[in-house]
């Protein structure tokens, strides 16, 4: 039997094909089907759910460099802001087909005709694409410089980048663009169209990043997180991979920002609904709460925190940042591997460390006794083979492991 045909339970924690197997494809399809059904099932929640999809995009994108490659960027919020403002500029330049005179004149109370809807939907496209591309270009240029720094320095430098970009929007000297640029007025079908835009974007991000997660690109990123010097010494294109990861993340977050501009009705980075620096904190928090490095962790984190976020907006908007702080502390203390780690431990009976973090793992004991020249730890491993439930392998940083 060839080795890759064997599918021991360990695969669930660290196997390569785990995202190509049926369960994950099914989960992805279920999520997308739910997204398709929403406009008919709960039409009154279209606005918040559009924002939810955008949050999913933000979390998944941040996870690419911050979670998998271990380069936490505190400034990824710069990309939605860039995307938003570039999109508005481009749409203004193109004399926005999205603005439908009839509907606006009618005060938005009339439903749009079908061709108008299509035009409106398509009218956003050039702006959204331009926003994403511009954000990716900024990431390539900035990443070429900043990603040479050690990761702590990188985090601080990106925070500076975010402050600069948000500030630049406020002091924008040109007619179009900037914080108070005129956003396309949305007609009656607005929320409906914007929901489809956000959903389309999220579906695109989910499918593409799921693909990427099963590809060798993820392996290259995790290698950078685990041991960057070794990756470099082994001849990997370390800097190029980091920049590519950041550019992909920027492309998606930039498009998310571009879709958000008409959703919020403003391009202001300081607006309460999409407060630049505050969302910047939340998008990191979503990944940390969900479990960085995994694929479903950020999605789960985005959904969980989005619910909290919306409730806070309703009841106590002034406490949002405080809640974010408390959440951060609680996550660090009680869920160091996030929801994904908790799930792995609770339902898959695997060490929470195994999948996401390189701190040793569970799969050691099963095969450790194979070689006759195994070291002194073999006794403990032999016990594990004999069916002992818990093994604590001391001395080499192994975590307590429970065998299924």
């Amino acid at each position, binding site marked *: 039997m*060839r*080795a*890759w045909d*064997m599918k*021991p339970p*360990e*695969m669930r*924690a*660290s*196997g*390569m094909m785990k995202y*190509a197997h049926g369960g994950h494809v099914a989960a992805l399809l279920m999520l997308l089907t739910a997204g398709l059904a929403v406009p008919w099932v709960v039409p009154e929640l279209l606005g918040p759910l559009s924002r939810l999809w955008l949050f999913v995009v933000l979390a998944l994108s941040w996870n690419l460099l911050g979670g998998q490659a271990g380069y936490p960027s505190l400034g990824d919020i710069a990309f939605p802001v860039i995307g938003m403002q570039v999109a508005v500029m481009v749409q203004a330049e193109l004399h926005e087909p999205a603005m439908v005179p009839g509907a606006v004149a009618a005060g938005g109370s009339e439903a749009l005709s079908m061709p108008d809807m299509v035009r409106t939907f398509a009218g956003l496209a050039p702006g959204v694409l331009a926003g994403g591309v511009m954000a990716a270009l900024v990431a390539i240029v900035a990443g070429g410089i900043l990603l040479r720094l050690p990761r702590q320095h990188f985090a601080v430098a990106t925070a500076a980048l975010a402050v600069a970009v948000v500030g630049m929007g406020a002091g924008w000297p040109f007619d179009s663009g900037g914080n108070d640029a005129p956003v396309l007025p949305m007609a009656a079908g607005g929320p409906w169209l914007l929901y489809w835009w956000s959903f389309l974007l999220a579906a695109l991000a989910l499918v593409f990043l799921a*693909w*990427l997660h099963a*590809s*060798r*690109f993820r*392996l*290259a990123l*995790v*290698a950078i*997180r*685990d*041991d960057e*010097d*070794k*990756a*470099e*010494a*082994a*001849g*990997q*294109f*370390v800097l*190029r*991979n980091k920049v*590519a990861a950041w550019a992909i993340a920027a492309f998606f977050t930039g498009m998310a920002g571009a879709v958000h501009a008409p959703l919020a009705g403003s391009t202001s980075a300081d607006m309460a609904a999409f407060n630049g620096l505050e969302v910047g904190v939340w998008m990191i928090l979503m990944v940390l709460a969900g479990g960085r*490095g995994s694929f479903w962790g950020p999605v789960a984190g985005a959904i969980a925190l989005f619910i909290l976020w919306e409730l806070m907006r309703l009841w106590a908007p002034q406490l949002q940042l405080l809640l974010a702080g408390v959440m951060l502390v609680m996550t660090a203390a009680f869920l160091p591997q996030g929801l994904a780690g908790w799930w792995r431990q609770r339902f898959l009976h695997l060490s929470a460390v*195994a999948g996401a*973090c*390189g*701190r*040793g*793992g*569970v*799969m*050691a004991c*099963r*095969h*450790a006794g*194979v*070689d*006759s*020249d*195994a*070291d002194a*730890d073999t006794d403990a491993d032999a016990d594990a083979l004999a069916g002992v439930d818990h093994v604590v392998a001391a001395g*080499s*940083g*192994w975590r307590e492991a429970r065998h299924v």
Partner: protein
Amino acid sequence: MSDTMHRLTFFRPLLEVRCINGIDSIGNSSRKDAACSLQAVSLSVERGIIVGVGGPAGAGKTLLLDCISGMRSIDAGEIWFNGHEISHLRSGYIARMGLVRTFHPPRVFRSLSCLENMLTALPAERRLLPGLFAWPRRADLARATELLAFVGLHDGCWQQAGALPVHQRKRLELAMALMSEPKMLLVDEPVADLDAAGAEDMMELLRRINAELGTTLLVATQDMHWLEGVADYIHWLEQGRVVAAGTPQELGVRHQEPV
């Protein structure tokens, strides 16, 4: 040597180290009594043989490997590999030219499984970006499994590398280096932390790598006795200088089978 002869790489040694000075940390190599620095070290490695670098702890063996593999810069002298000067290239370039090293203690990507570790080490032209987005091919997986079996990790494909014991991580690191189809392998301390039987196995493995895969090896270790068993030619380092060089026979001590 004329310029034309320089280009006839086949007739030249695979690796030439000419009179290099290296320093261990930030400091000045002109300080002659520096504890760990290389002073005018020269050696050459012909194609297809196993060369040993021996010496007590602190003699500069690892430093020499660091200098050759581009992880540290050298002060003086030059290093040539396969007809190209690599004295001041970065480690990534050197590795992609086919000069790959291992570390002591072994360094693998801990949160990946053994098979995934192997897949990060595909040959250099497979690491370019558009191709990196592809899923691993069956042929790659087959090659990875084959190499893992070759180094003696028969069942370890799905094990997490960080959870392996040290001697298996050494083997995994060797397998990863071989995965990239190197012309030459720098092996740092292959037998440190191994018992006698493990050292025998490692000797056997290095010889098989040399004989079956045709890889040239430069092996650095403290264990002179072991080195005489495996190497065709030995350089003995002490305090950053080559104090003796020759075949094991020339160096005077015949290899004796362990009792």
